[in-house]
């Protein structure tokens, strides 16, 4: 058609879209000349939008007519018969093929869908699958698509046969494989499903098994995968040539070592005379580059270069070190901290901006973030700054844990029965990292009001200060009916001074005012209490000195998985107080990795409380108790140890001056949440007891129990402890409490 100047543009056949949309993508407008070239361009650009089935140009006088046929939209699509492969896998495949409600329908989608589904079934060992697609037209230029799948049987690996292996048996080698021949005893076995990637992975595992044991010349000559004609069984045969073992003749270092050679040599566990092992070589190289990155060489490249000497089958191993340039940190950024202020995170940093990069400092910073009570997880990434070769940004990605636990209304604790409590604890008040908690309690036995505020960074260096105020009236009892009332009011101020990355000391003082009231006449007070009151009186004002030293290398404060906590504390009343009492505790927590995801936790404590100077009886409320979910589970809260007299009237637990217990837990990785950041399931064995005097201790008297415990860090109620314990050989008179539940308890 001969060219003309466009006066106006009209669209014909538009249904869903507007003329505006066409005009946006049309390369020509009013006033342009339409000729073959611009006509072609117009059609091509409209096609490229993918919105139209076909496009044609027409002319009415000087008006350019654009005939378009919009592509039908997909009204609906369903798949039937796909039992084995469902869910996201299939949806993603369909979506990537362009099959989505509302998307535009193109014929090419049909075979893409067919191909994609068939490929997925082949990848999962369904070699017998048949996939058909059907298209049906629906009103309004829309189509609905039906995909029919006949799955057929899955091909299982009948046999994996390794030919040519002498040094190690087939069984030993197949152990390193993830793929396995199908085994009638394994019911839900999925490892007999053939998958090419998995086989490649297994071959990798096979060759590193040999390379890690010195067979440097090991080679997988060929691999055959054969399918039986009925497409039911798969036979894998792997032909290998082992070659001989190689021993290390010498270990040298080459390149710019930065650190001295014997320090590096200690990092590599291979030396002359050892059988060569690729694993040791690569791990040695890794340890060297880690060490280098602690001195700013973040991008050090350390490579083990084995030189084989075939005749005497020895290897000259040289470690080539290229430190790269010394790297500086440009910026440290945090992301994911919606509720935490930047400074609260930045003060945990052991790495400074504008300073030499140190991997150990960055890793230590990450662990310090992960240990914050209000941080569930922290990951770090070091990104080179584009355009420079020695500047990096360090980016910490944190996921916040609900910091607060508001707990109102009903609380339940083994010892005090139902208690009406209202407590608020917030471990990240206003995002400043301060821990604030206030609680009000009232139940049958006691009424109390308490508040505490901890600022972990009273000074920039991290000296923490805790202010704690507490008033408590408890009638009748500390435990059951030993028959006396107490009113105590305490105020304390404690500081924590860090001595090193892992150790800090605790120093502080506290004022304590206590009054005891007994009811000797209505003989509802036990002899022990009366004895004390006679000896020491009923009103005491004490000034307490609190000291202690804590070494904490755990990787998290809640649900830690590595490291240990040692906590030695000594609180004693300063001479001149009414009572001279001291309490010394040693608490020990150790995490022991056992095997892959399995690890154990040991929680032990030894405590002594006694009088000194002219106080020889300690007040009943200072005595130590044991039993219950915090010490020996399976026994009612605080019921272990000596009983008060006279037996017939009371026989209630009266606590003791010496307490020792240990909770040994084996943590089972729960399938639902493998990183057990907010839940923990464990089987445990607890043992311990309370003795009146230190020298009353007898191993025979120790009570123990075993059982299963579940701890869950709830979004609002803080930590929930649930345990079911079976006491071992309980003595007559022990009060048992197999099922115990505690929640809302702070930590």
């Amino acid at each position: 058609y001969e060219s003309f100047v466009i006066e106006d543009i009209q669209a014909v056949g538009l249904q869903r879209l507007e003329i505006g949309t066409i005009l946006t993508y049309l390369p020509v407008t009013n006033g342009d000349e339409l000729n073959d070239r611009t006509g072609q361009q117009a059609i091509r650009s409209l096609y490229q939008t993918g919105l139209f089935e076909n496009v044609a140009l027409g002319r009415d006088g000087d008006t350019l007519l654009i005939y378009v046929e919009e592509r039908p939209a997909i009204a609906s699509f369903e798949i039937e018969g796909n039992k084995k492969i469902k869910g996201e896998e299939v949806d993603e495949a369909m979506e990537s093929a362009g099959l989505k409600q509302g998307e535009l329908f193109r014929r090419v989608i049909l075979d893409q869908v067919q191909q994609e589904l068939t490929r997925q079934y082949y990848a999962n060992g369904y070699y017998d699958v048949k996939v058909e697609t059907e298209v049906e037209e629906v009103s309004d230029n829309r189509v609905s698509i039906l995909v029919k799948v006949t799955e057929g049987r899955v091909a299982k690996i009948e046999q994996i046969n390794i030919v040519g292996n002498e040094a190690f048996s087939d069984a030993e080698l197949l152990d390193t494989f993830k793929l396995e021949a199908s085994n009638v005893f394994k019911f839900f076995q999925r490892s007999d499903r053939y998958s090419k990637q998995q086989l490649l992975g297994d071959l990798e595992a096979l060759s590193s098994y040999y390379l890690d044991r010195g067979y440097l010349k090991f080679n997988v000559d060929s691999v055959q995968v054969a399918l039986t004609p009925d497409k039911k069984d798969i036979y894998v045969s792997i032909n290998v040539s082992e070659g001989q073992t190689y021993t290390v003749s010498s270990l040298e270092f080459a390149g710019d070592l930065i650190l001295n050679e014997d320090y590096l040599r200690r990092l590599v566990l291979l030396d002359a005379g050892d059988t060569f092992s690729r694993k040791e070589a690569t791990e040695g190289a890794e340890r060297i580059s880690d060490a280098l990155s602690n001195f700013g060489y973040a991008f050090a490249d350390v490579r083990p270069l084995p030189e084989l000497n075939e005749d005497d089958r020895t290897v000259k191993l040289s470690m080539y070190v290229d430190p790269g340039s010394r790297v500086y940190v440009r910026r440290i950024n945090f992301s994911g901290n919606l509720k935490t202020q930047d400074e609260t995170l930045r003060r945990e940093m052991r790495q400074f901006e504008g300073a030499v990069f140190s991997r150990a400092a960055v890793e230590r910073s990450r662990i310090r973030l992960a240990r914050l009570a209000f941080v569930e997880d922290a990951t770090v990434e070091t990104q080179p700054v584009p355009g420079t070769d020695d500047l990096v940004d360090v980016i910490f990605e944190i996921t916040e844990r609900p910091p607060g636990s508001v707990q109102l209304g009903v609380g339940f604790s083994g010892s005090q029965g139902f208690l009406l409590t209202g407590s608020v604890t917030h471990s990240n008040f206003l995002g400043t990292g301060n821990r604030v908690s206030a609680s009000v309690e009232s139940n049958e036995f006691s009424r109390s009001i308490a508040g505490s505020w901890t600022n972990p960074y009273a000074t920039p260096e991290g000296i923490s200060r805790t202010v704690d105020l507490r008033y408590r009236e408890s009638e009748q009892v500390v435990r059951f009916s030993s028959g006396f009332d107490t009113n105590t009011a305490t105020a304390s101020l404690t500081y924590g001074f860090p001595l090193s990355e892992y150790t800090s000391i605790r120093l502080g003082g506290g004022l304590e005012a206590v009054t005891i009231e007994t009811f000797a006449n209505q003989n509802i007070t036990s002899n022990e209490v009366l004895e004390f009151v006679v000896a020491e009186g009923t009103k005491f004002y004490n000034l307490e000195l609190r000291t202690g030293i804590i070494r904490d290398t755990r990787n998290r404060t809640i649900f830690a998985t590595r490291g240990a906590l040692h906590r030695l504390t000594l609180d004693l009343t300063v001479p001149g107080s009414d009572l001279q009492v001291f309490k010394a505790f040693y608490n020990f927590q150790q995490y022991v990795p056992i095997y892959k995801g399995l690890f154990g936790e040991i929680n032990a404590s030894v405590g002594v409380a006694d009088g000194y100077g002219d106080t020889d009886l300690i007040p009943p409320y200072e005595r130590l108790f044991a039993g219950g979910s915090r010490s020996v589970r399976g026994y009612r809260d605080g019921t272990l140890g000596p009983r008060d007299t006279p037996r017939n009237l009371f026989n209630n637990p009266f606590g003791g001056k010496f307490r020792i217990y240990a909770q040994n837990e084996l943590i089972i990785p729960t399938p639902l949440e493998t990183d057990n950041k907010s839940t923990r399931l464990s089987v445990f064995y607890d043992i311990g007891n309370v003795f009146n005097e230190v020298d009353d201790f007898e191993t025979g008297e120790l009570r123990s129990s075993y059982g299963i415990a579940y701890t869950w860090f709830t979004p609002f109620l803080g930590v929930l402890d649930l345990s079911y314990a079976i006491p071992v050989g309980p003595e007559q008179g022990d009060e048992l409490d197999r099922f115990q539940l505690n929640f809302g308890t702070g930590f």
Partner: protein
Amino acid sequence: CSGNKVVNKPAELTAVERAELQFERVWSKRVGAGTAGKFAALAPLIVDTRVFAADAKGRVRAFDTGAGATLWTQDTEYRFVAGPGMGADQILLGTLDGEVVALDAVTGEQRWRAMVDAEVLAAPVQDRNRVIARTVDGRVVGLDADTGDAEWEFTRTAPALTLRGLSNPVLRGSSVIVGLDTGHVVSLDTRTGEVEWEQLIREPTGRSELERIVDVDAQLLIDDGRLFTASYGGELVVLSAITGREIWRRNLRSYTGMAIQGDQLYVTDAEGKVWALDVVTGAAIWDQSELAFRGLTQPVWYRGNLIVGDYEGYLHALSPADGRIIGRTRPARDAMLTAPRVQGERLYVLASDGTLAALEGAPVSR
């Protein structure tokens, strides 16, 4: 027929109307554990009056054809998976651990053992003093018949995914013809291993590895200068056995094998249909699909009829005229992985549970 579980269901057997052939078991013996549940190419070997058979756990036995008397039994450590093949006064076996084993035919004593580094999944053959064996990784090796020393090796790398099983090498004069997993057939000189000719039977086509399987697993058949071959990729091709030049080809997918009698070629296809084709043109004369998907073996010619074994241990007799089922017997309970062997009036079958049976078929007296 919504997406049923099994795509191809084995056909149900219907009673044989007018049986024309009835079978009588002459003797039946047990050969160890049979194939121990795994795929294997173990078959009976009949030499004059002796029948040899092996199992997958290393047991080999020899019987007299007459009444099946046991001549000798040999228990070894080998994991036999193919054979025995016939040698000069020795029998040849292939193992899963990549070994070829020669046992003395008379005493059963081991003569030699050769390591060929890959599973030997087809019965080795012997031409004068050369033993030829082939392995799953696409190699054909020539060994010294007396010592087992390697003399030559022919290699074609096998495709990543193949069909389990290999066609046996076939001797013709001083050449050996082998059907490869690459879809080719090659003729080698037995003494030197040189390639005499190589012919493509079927080109791999299709997108997935599965659609590209073209193994020539069906047993090769030589009859008066013509070589009958079939590829699982879907072609049945007849070549000149001397030059390898193609005579005719038609599409038919088979992994078992063929039989020939007069001007008719009988073949079992991959879906268990038995076909009769005109030997000259390849045109189909009749096809029998009542035994579809029953894992049928290669058909064998026996006293004027066709015999096929199936996956439940049945033997079916078909009339060569129209393929009608004219007889049936069940010598064993378990699948027959290889075709029955015929010697004179006798039929020998080895089932995968280790049953070795000798049968005789006789026309039904009217």
